[in-house]
């Protein structure tokens, strides 16, 4: 019908409105918008009604109220009289701590295992293969439970300990204890020396690259850099009159049974929840990283190493200068998502009550009933972390990407 009407009105000859892709597109999109708006309105109106009926004030005002619960590990000042908002900040920093240390460990283990899987040695490559398959195919939560409830509960009780690394680190049911550096007055100069060393190392790297481009001469950048970063603070430390010592954990072995154990405040202490979570997360993620590394190295054509050998490069420089830079291009994008996964998976801390963002938030949620706000905070924080990480990695990826004509 519409065709005839259009024709009689003298409109330009075209397909029916039903078959016009543009019109159809507009119609679909309009329908989607209407459906979404209706759905949103339905949810919002229901939520408002429900909140009113349950007498829950909406908004973030509750964050100023006193929390009244303790947190077993806090990187920033926190007491039971602090506010809910401060509690959530403590949780956020704990999440960051687990994520950073977990990513660090997982990267190291993952690269080692990934390269081991490519080893010519049959035993080594089989071991790496078994590690990857076993760890990948068992749920992370189960692994966290295993480390926390099965392994870390089997260590000695509070009145006893296992020591290792020449008696500097000790493990018992209260966690891992080790020496804590204590900075005294005048120790600031060590920090400044470290900063200076890092800046100098970068400068040397730039200078040596320029010199190599101009003259072809190489300079041992890595060794000088390491030397400066270790050496300068050491010199500063000696010059400033050694203003730093280590606070070693003290263990009382004699006297009445109840007095035995570590003295409070001696050395640093990593709580078992933290240990279990970090171990499980990094071992689990490392299995995935290992596969990524293996695939990345295998993606570099064999001709590249043959060409490098033909140029006279030995195995080490071939790997470092030819294979790894090319493999990194393949490795970095999936590696990014593994880092993100690790960060998101750290939310499983709630299962063993390590006070991360989700765990602390869950406590606040139970006490206040502010479900929407708390879940909103969670999602906002994780989304921001995700976007920041992927933005950084995209930038890095672009720098490393192959520049083609």
């Amino acid at each position: 019908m519409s065709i005839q009407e259009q024709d009689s009105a003298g409109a330009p000859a075209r397909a029916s409105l039903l078959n016009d892709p543009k019109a159809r597109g507009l119609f679909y999109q309009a329908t989607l918008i209407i459906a979404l708006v209706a759905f949103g309105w339905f949810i919002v109106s229901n939520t408002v009604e429900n909140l009113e009926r349950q007498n829950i004030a909406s908004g973030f005002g509750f964050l100023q109220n006193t929390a009244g619960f303790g947190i077993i590990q806090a990187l920033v000042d926190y007491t039971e009289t602090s506010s809910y908002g401060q509690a959530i900040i403590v949780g956020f920093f704990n999440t960051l701590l687990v994520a950073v240390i977990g990513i660090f460990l997982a990267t190291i283990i993952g690269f080692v295992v990934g390269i081991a899987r490519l080893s010519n040695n049959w035993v080594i490559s089989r071991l790496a293969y078994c590690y990857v398959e076993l760890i990948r195919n068992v749920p992370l939560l189960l692994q966290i439970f295993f480390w926390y409830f099965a392994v870390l509960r089997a260590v000695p009780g509070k009145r006893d300990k296992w020591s290792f690394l020449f008696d500097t680190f000790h493990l018992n049911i209260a966690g891992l204890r080790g020496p804590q550096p204590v900075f005294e007055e005048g120790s600031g100069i060590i920090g400044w020396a470290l900063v200076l060393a890092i800046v100098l190392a970068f400068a040397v790297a730039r200078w040596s690259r320029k010199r190599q481009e101009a003259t072809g001469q190489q300079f041992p950048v890595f060794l000088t850099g390491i030397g400066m970063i270790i050496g300068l603070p050491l010199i500063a430390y000696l010059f400033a009159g050694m203003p730093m010592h280590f606070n070693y954990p003290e263990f009382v072995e004699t006297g009445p049974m109840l007095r035995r154990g570590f003295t409070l405040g001696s050395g640093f202490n990593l709580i078992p929840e933290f240990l279990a979570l970090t171990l499980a997360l990094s071992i689990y993620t490392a299995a995935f990283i290992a596969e990524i590394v293996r695939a990345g190295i295998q993606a570099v054509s064999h001709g590249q190493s043959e060409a490098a050998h033909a140029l006279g490069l030995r195995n080490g420089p071939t790997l470092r200068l030819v294979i790894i830079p090319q493999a990194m291009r393949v490795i970095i994008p999936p590696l990014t998502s593994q880092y993100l996964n690790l960060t998101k998976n750290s939310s499983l801390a709630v299962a063993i009550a390590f006070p991360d963002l989700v765990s602390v938030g869950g406590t606040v949620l139970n006490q206040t009933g502010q479900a929407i706000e708390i879940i909103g905070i969670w999602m906002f924080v994780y989304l921001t972390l995700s976007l920041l990480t992927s933005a950084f990695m995209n930038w890095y990826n672009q720098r490393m990407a192959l520049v083609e004509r």
Partner: protein
Amino acid sequence: MANADIFQIRTEEAPKLAAPISTSGVVGWMRQNLFSSIGNTVLTVIGLLIAYSLIMPFVQFAIIDAVWTGSDRTACLAAEGAGHAGACWAYVIDYLPQFIYGRYPTEEIYRVNIVYALFVLLLVPLLMPSAPYKGINALLFLVVFPIISYFLLTGLEFGGTVVLPIVETARWGGLLVTLVIAVTGIVASLPLGIALALGRRSNMPIIKMVSVIFIEFWRGVPLITVLFMSSVMLPLFLPEGVTFDKLLRVLIGVTLFSAAYMAEVVRGGLQAIPKGQYEGAMALGLRFWPMMGLIILPQALKLVIPGIVNTFIGLFKDTTLVLIVGMFDLLGQIQSSFSDPNWSTPTQGHTGYLFAAIVFFVFCFGMSRYSIFMENKLHTGHKR
């Protein structure tokens, strides 16, 4: 005769050279793969030491020192006292019904068994490439089976007459819950994921934007927060008096979450299809859905089978997280059995976790092996 000096006639035998180093057989293989150099030999020894120090305690714990029979903890404690702190398998055997069915009423368990049996009967021929009637089989598995098992598991009442007594989902547990969440999540997230992937590649800006936001949002948050959201926030979204079953809420959350991951996998496959395939389909006069359904998606999905299976495996492992919102999947059921004083022994935890690990490993490793098998079976020239 002067020429005789030119010739040299060997009067004694040439010195015998040693036989070349064998490169075949067990010895040759070992020489090549284990002891080719000093460094390699050291690595082999270290590797063997690591393997030995891991495998021996495991075998000792799981098999040699294990206790297999007994009706309560005394058997395991006795072995413990005798210095054999091995796995207490008697506890797992005693608890096996709970691990498989949860607290499903004993007299109704046959219904769960029927569902399990139907699942295996329909799935196995579907997975075998040589089995006939794939179309009917898929229809039965994807449409008929879910409906039948829904009524079998929840119960059926027909205008007052009880055909099958109702069993609330609060009584479901163990492997049943794990499988229900995993299978429902897998089956429901695939079509949703395909739709989202198509939406993300659509020319229509609003549809594209909505898909992108949906995908990036669900991929950016941890599954735990999604589960909290579906169990705590979802009831707030609904009008007064409307309540959702807890399991259903979790299912919705899991499906939306894994659909976003599935969408990205499918998008990868769609991007890998050359433009000529689209143009060819359009030149044949196919419209959008026939083009997608007959030409593009079959090729794209075939390309991303490993990615899809990886998402499935991830989803299967992630079902364990429901225990955090108070549901008892396999791991949750095992975790809760630890509070039973009848079986409380020092090795109970290790045994329970070992059992859970074995079950999950068998499922996940099986899936990944199957995906490799299908990949080899289906590859049609894409592989180099």
